[in-house]
């Protein structure tokens, strides 16, 4: 009897575990690949070794051929042994970058090597900034501390410090006309300023902005903006809200250094997530949302053709990009069962609303709560996958092909990072990705359970 009760209780609580951290993921410096495209007047300089350069070149494939606005400052033996002066070397390279590209900002990406040899990038940047007359932002996106998408987090946290402060009116306006104008502006907008953070493709930015406009909410800026020179103004009265689950450092910086107020909401992934995101923002800003019910319903109607493909099917997230909790929540809402949700790092405070929504979703759909494994161990995970035989494993490219060869259906997790998955309209794209291997299985008629030699 007590056993049953205990089981029932266990079923209703999210379990958090932590493994060895021996898992495959991309190095956080990969964030330069999407950030240099997002911030049009930037230049990213990765200060590291051949290992870093080779990773960027191979992981980002053809992008390297398009004359990207990023480069390696490749450290050589003389740099490591401090025979060369770091400052002079960086000055030489940055001068060249300034001459060739003339960017508005140079972002230095610190790597493992700069950490270990304790290169004082934060100390050198202001000095060089003054000498060159070009802004230099330092982000430590290294594999010692962070995984994959967290790279963006470190860059945005560093940029947050560079956002201008909202001007605080110091004296009473003497001119009545101006005063009236201010009042008018205040009447027009029913809420304090709102800034959203997280790098998204411009179309998605517009979509989410419009979505909030519909509720009468003005978005005063995005971090990052399309141009570095247009960074949003931040200050005590500004509310901020994240669009991605991996931005906990940025959130913290915005709260502590810029005194902004954080709206802790689930993330706008899937129609359920998008709705909850908008509702939470409305709630905090004191606005009553309208028409969301129909809006969400309509989106779900649009997804109807996908749902039969995945309902009742099981998923296993191996974990590598921190989007896992949000995706799991959406897929459970779609009718899937999530066995395990691996995640590199879980900030329970920043993701609090998302975790709550995940719990709520599981209860409503009456499915078992996924086991959340922080810092997973890929080897143990493969053993569990062998036992559980899930219908779909969401994993990195290092393990996809070997799993497929063993008859396990997989989807590359990296695609979720590069595809457009935010907002109502992109929910379809998420399901397009998730169902693709399942649709492939339905079409292909090659009948082999396993394509590898049996172990002798």
């Amino acid at each position, binding site marked *: 009897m007590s056993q049953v009760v205990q089981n029932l209780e266990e079923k209703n609580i999210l379990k958090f575990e932590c493994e060895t*951290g*021996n898992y*495959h*993921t*991309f*190095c*956080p410096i990969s964030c330069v690949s999407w950030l240099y495209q997002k911030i049009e007047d930037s230049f990213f300089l990765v*200060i590291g*070794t*051949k*290992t870093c*350069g*080779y*990773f960027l*070149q*191979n*992981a980002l494939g053809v992008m*390297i*051929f398009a004359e*990207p606005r990023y*480069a*390696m*400052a*490749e*450290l*050589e*033996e003389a*740099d*490591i042994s401090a025979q*060369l002066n770091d400052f002079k*070397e*960086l000055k*030489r*390279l940055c001068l*060249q*970058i300034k001459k060739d590209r003339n960017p508005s900002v140079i972002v230095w990406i610190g790597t*493992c*090597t700069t*950490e*270990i*040899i304790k290169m004082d990038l934060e100390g050198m940047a202001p000095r060089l900034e003054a000498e060159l007359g070009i802004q230099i932002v330092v982000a430590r996106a*290294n*594999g*010692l*501390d*962070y*995984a*994959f998408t967290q790279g963006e987090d470190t860059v945005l946290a560093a940029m947050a410090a560079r956002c201008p402060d909202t001007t605080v009116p110091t004296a009473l306006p003497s001119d009545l006309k101006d005063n009236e104008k201010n009042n008018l502006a205040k009447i027009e907008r029913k809420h304090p300023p709102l800034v959203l953070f997280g790098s998204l493709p411009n179309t998605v930015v517009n979509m989410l902005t419009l979505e909030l406009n519909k509720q009468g909410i003005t978005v005063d800026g995005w971090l990052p903006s399309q141009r570095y020179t247009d960074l949003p103004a931040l200050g005590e009265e500004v509310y901020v809200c994240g669009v991605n689950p991996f931005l906990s450092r940025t959130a913290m910086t915005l709260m502590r250094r810029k005194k902004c107020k954080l709206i802790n909401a689930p993330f706008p992934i899937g129609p359920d997530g998008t709705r909850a995101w908008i509702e939470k923002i409305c709630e905090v800003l004191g606005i009553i949302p309208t028409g969301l019910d129909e809006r969400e319903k309509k989106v779900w109607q649009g997804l109807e053709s996908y749902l039969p493909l995945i309902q009742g099917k099981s998923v296993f997230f191996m974990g590598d990009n921190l989007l896992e909790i949000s995706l799991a929540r959406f897929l459970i809402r779609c009718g899937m069962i999530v066995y395990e949700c691996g995640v590199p790092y879980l900030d329970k405070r920043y993701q609090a609303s998302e975790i709550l929504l995940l719990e709520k979703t599981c209860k409503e759909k009456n499915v078992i709560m996924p086991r959340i494994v922080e810092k997973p161990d890929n*080897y143990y995970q*493969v053993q569990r996958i062998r036992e559980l035989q899930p219908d779909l494993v969401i994993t*990195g*490219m*290092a*393990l*996809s*092909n*070997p799993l497929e*060869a063993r008859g396990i259906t997989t989807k590359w997790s990296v695609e979720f990072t590069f595809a457009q998955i935010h907002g109502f309209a992109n929910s379809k794209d998420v399901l397009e990705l998730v169902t693709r291997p399942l649709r492939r299985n339905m079409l292909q008629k090659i009948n082999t359970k396993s*394509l*590898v030699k049996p172990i002798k």
Partner: protein
Amino acid sequence: MKLAYWMYAGPAHIGTLRVASSFKNVHAIMHAPLGDDYFNVMRSMLERERDFTPVTTSIVDRHVLARGSQEKVVENITRKDKEELPDLILLTPTCTSSILQEDLQNFVNRATMESKSDVILADVNHYRVNELQAADRTLEQIVRFYVEKAKKQNNLNTTKTEKPSVNILGIFTLGFHNQHDCRELKTLLNQLGITVNEVIPEGGSVLNLKNLPKAWFNIVPYREVGLMTAVYLEKEFEMPYVDITPMGIIQTENFIRKIETILNSLTTHSEEQASSKIYNFDKYIEQQIIYVSQAAWFARSIDCQNLTNKKAVVFGDATHAVAMTKILVSEMGIRVACAGTYCQHDADWFRDQVWGFCDEVLITDDHTQVGDMIARIEPSAIFGTQMERHVGKRLDIPCGVISAPVHIQNFPLGYRPFLGFEGTNQIADLVYNSFTLGMEDHLLEIFGGHDSKEVITKSLSTDSELNWTGEALAELSKIPGFVRGKIKRNTEKFARQNKISNISIDVMYAAKEANS
């Protein structure tokens, strides 16, 4: 510090991992931070590997920085030992671990005591050697380790096989067409009546390395990897080796002749019916050149005549760039304006090999220098790596890929060797296709330029109100078939723009002039 966008050869540990994961049942453990295991991605994606790449990371994180790896590396080694039961575990340093200066050898010594598998530390310095040098070194290190181990245990197999046999050294994972080359080499050796004793590292077992001395001699098909091992085996067991790359007709012939010499020298040594055992492959070579390889005939055919003195540029690793330069010049009559390599550590050998075959030599690992050289020379075709292919795209020059660094397209499913007699066919196709594409482009230029920017109609020919005169139609029919459609469209576009409804020969030439 060096400002770099792209590199030809990867970091040292990649070379070590390529060798380790080519062997069967060898596990590599990298001492590296999170995210440095993208080698697994490359192997799984480029090679479309079905098995889990036998590489794990002993992760260097903040705690390791603060307290040192302590038990971590040893634990990871013994854990893998129990989980996978490998024959050998290779601890691989990376750029990060090499500046941490931890005593990895000490970890290896400790782990050796606790694990059933052999454990060794890859002896490569990240800051001094590149991927290829590291691979060469690691292969030699593993071979040396097992030869010495066998010597100690007294089970080294030094009796030569009865029939002539050979080891092939240096075939490995992520190598440029290595799998196909290996199959081709085996076929060739088989036809010569030589058995293959061991192929390493690809698919080889470290437990069989003690059998290496059984072979009569060694073959090192690629300059970059395997040479150190061959030299070691020569010193240790007086095993001769062939280091001629059998790429192209002439070099394949030289390769076989070298084998012939070696075999003859070995048999006279043994003084076994010296007269009857003389090896002579003349007939075989002749047969192959006439009937198997089409390249010799191709070189003679008028197709190839059209290529005479066309300008080409060659760039790649030392092996492929040298072989390709020699093929283009000596077998096809093409002029190589510049031959180059990124294997700077082997620059002297490279210069020596291509001396007299090309106008200039370029030794650099800076891709912008290579790009500038190509832009300056304006060759009719480029033979290079994926990077040169891209340069070619930008400059509108066709490019055949002949060397790593490579792309998933360079791991074809079909049989595409570069070595041996079948290889000569593949290369002839590659060269010819590159140049005909160039010719086609050239003809387009003569008759009106590219029309890729503005497409007026979707269909190839347009049913329009335009009227072609009989003479113009006759002129049109004279234009080679494969460009006729484009010329017709260009002329019609011109006519439409100038509100001309009757297209005569005059209009055709006016169009050509307007377009050029």
